[in-house]
């Protein structure tokens, strides 16, 4: 009998945008829904799964590889909140070696040893560092590993540039069986115009918003106590937002190839919005017709 299909998803986004926070809360919420979940941190800082394990660090796949040479991938798997399997790829010290190759090595190691199947997982969620700067960071979206990609982005232009770059990576691999785009998780959205910027970007790149996640002090408080919001404040409004996100991700089946903007389109688009933001912040009143 064929094993059940494992839903593998990858969460990308600019560094510091809230990927690990979002991913850990998503993992926790899916776990609460009864799924067997693994969260796979693909960041040399190895701190993706901290809030699933009371703020503690775990040995990384590459730490074990460096120490032993040959690694049983199961030695790199640690249980966290509600039985979530936590794995950190790890990587070199800042400024040396190749973090991209580290991710390739770690992902391939788990794949080769059939860990996902043996654990009978429902979800594997890759939390991937930053922009798609080299082939190593694209591993989760190629080679038939993850099926769906979600990108965490705020309305900040740099975050949107990173998302657009990710879309280019997805588009590149889309014809060779790579992962497709599920949508954008709009993070730190506190005002209407921030929401409008993201809505406009997803419309132009032919994708969708999975959830609007507001900035919240509850998240900060939870993380300071080494926990996800789902665990530390399960009845909070913010936890509700993450649960809704988990439900949408769970119901999501069809991802698409995005239509990233080219350099000029992106620059023009950003300039257009910068102009509008300036008008908003300086109190200038524009008619509906002038408002593009």
């Amino acid at each position, binding site marked *: 009998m064929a094993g059940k299909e494992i839903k593998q998803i990858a969460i990308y986004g600019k560094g510091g945008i809230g990927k690990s926070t979002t991913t850990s809360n998503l993992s926790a919420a899916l776990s609460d829904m009864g799924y067997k979940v693994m969260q796979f941190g693909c960041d040399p800082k190895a701190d993706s799964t901290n809030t699933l394990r009371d703020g503690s660090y775990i040995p990384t796949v*590459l730490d074990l*590889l*460096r120490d032993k*040479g040959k690694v049983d991938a199961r030695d790199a798997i640690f249980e966290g909140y509600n039985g979530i399997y936590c794995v950190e790829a790890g*990587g*070199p*010290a800042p400024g*040396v*070696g*190749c*973090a991209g*190759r*580290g991710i390739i*090595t770690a992902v391939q190691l788990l794949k080769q040893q059939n860990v996902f199947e043996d654990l009978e997982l429902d979800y594997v969620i890759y939390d991937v560092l930053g922009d798609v700067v080299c082939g190593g960071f694209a591993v989760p979206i190629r080679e038939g590993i993850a099926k769906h990609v979600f990108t965490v982005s705020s309305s900040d232009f740099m975050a949107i540039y990173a998302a657009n770059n990710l879309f280019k990576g997805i588009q590149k691999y889309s014809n060779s069986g790579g992962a497709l785009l599920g949508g954008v998780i709009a993070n730190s959205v506190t005002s209407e115009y921030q929401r409008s910027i993201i809505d406009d970007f997803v419309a132009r790149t032919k994708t969708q918003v999975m959830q609007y996640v507001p900035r919240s002090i509850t998240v900060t408080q939870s993380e300071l106590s080494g926990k996800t919001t789902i665990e530390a404040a399960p009845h909070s409004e913010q936890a509700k937002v993450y649960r809704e996100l988990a439900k949408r991700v769970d119901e999501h089946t069809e991802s698409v190839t995005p239509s990233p903007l080219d350099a000029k389109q992106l620059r023009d688009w950003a300039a257009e919005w910068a102009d509008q933001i300036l008008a908003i912040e300086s109190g200038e009143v524009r008619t509906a017709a002038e408002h593009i």
Partner: protein
Amino acid sequence: MNLTCSEQQRTACGVGGLYTALAIERCLPIMHCGPGCFGNVSATLGGMNGGQSGETYLGSVIPSTNFCEDDVVFGGTERLRKLVEECKKYYDADMFMIVDGCTAEIVGDDIEEVASVCTENDKPVLYAALPGFKGNSVWGHEQVLSAIVDQFLKPAEKTNPRQVNVFGIVPFFDPMWAGTLDALESLLVHLGLEPNIIYGREKGIANVNKIPEAAFNLILAPWTDLGVAERLRERFGTPYLHFDNMPIGPTETARLIRTLADYADLDRGKAEALIHKEEERFFYYMRRSYSWIFGCKNFPRKFIVNAGAAAAVSVTRFAVNDLGMIPYRIYITEGVPEEYEEMVRAQLHNIDYDGDFEIIFSEDGGLFEESLKTEDFSIRKICVFGTAWDLVPVKKHKLTFVSVAAPYGNCMIGSRTYFGCEGALRFCEDLYANAADNIVDPGI
């Protein structure tokens, strides 16, 4: 840059530049490269290149970190540092040259820092980044020389008015480099100069140290080492004389001697006497075989060169100016930098022949073999001056062949050289013997 596919490379990758370090006695290259890198470069520049190796350090003892996946992920400089420290204990060397290849350069390993940490007063550790994606072994050669000039040499307290440093030759890429430099040294000494050659027998670091003392640098090549000569002029104010080839035969040898005599204000009588003596000897032995050579009416008059620019200019000048042959097509295969292409083209046309002929700059030495599919040399035979790569097609088409460049072939090259008048006799022996084999074809 040539971005087309290349079928037959007559150079090794950038790491092949380590052979220039190997040519300097008691200079040990330390490789920060993958496990197969030395095997790759030695295939072109070592064993299959006239059975050559380093003399102080054989190819089989060149140390390497054997850069593997752990080094890619975490960086390999710590292992490199340990290897250099161990090498300093176990190898008796005057200089260490760290060279790295593609993977170490891609992941950004800092070999400069390792070299700096490991250097001691009497044990200099230099470094040269030689990734194959940046250039081939000829480029690598210049990187190694530049490393010596920039990292090791210090200004001299005095200049020796008779000392001349010899550059231009690329050791091992010119398979006859050792024999050629021996013969060249004798010639320069005879003219009253004090040649300072850093490669080969009984040279080494003492000669490297003397580089800044020279009155001038002599560059004997179409284009290689011109950059190094410029750098030496910038650093030490040493002028240089550029003579565009390593002479084969009486015409170019005489021109070199006269050029040197003019440039360095040498004894003209002694120079002319040497020219006369060399020519007399050359033509004596040639005259003894003229009836045999010219008795063969089917000897091919036209020739193709399929080699680097250095071999091409030397051989073309001799074949045309001294043997009366006609160039048909010349493939220049070492990836001459674009800024030098026109200069090399002019050098090739600077011969006693006004007719037209093709010059093709391409790193794909396989273009010659490809041409044999459409060009028929079965009636009007042609001579081919190339490398061991060309052996199969020339044997198949029974073409006269002389190997003049790397990879030279599976044989022992010893002290063989085509330099000067004596070397030109060796060239003629090889050329006419091969021609006779192909034309007469005893059928046994």
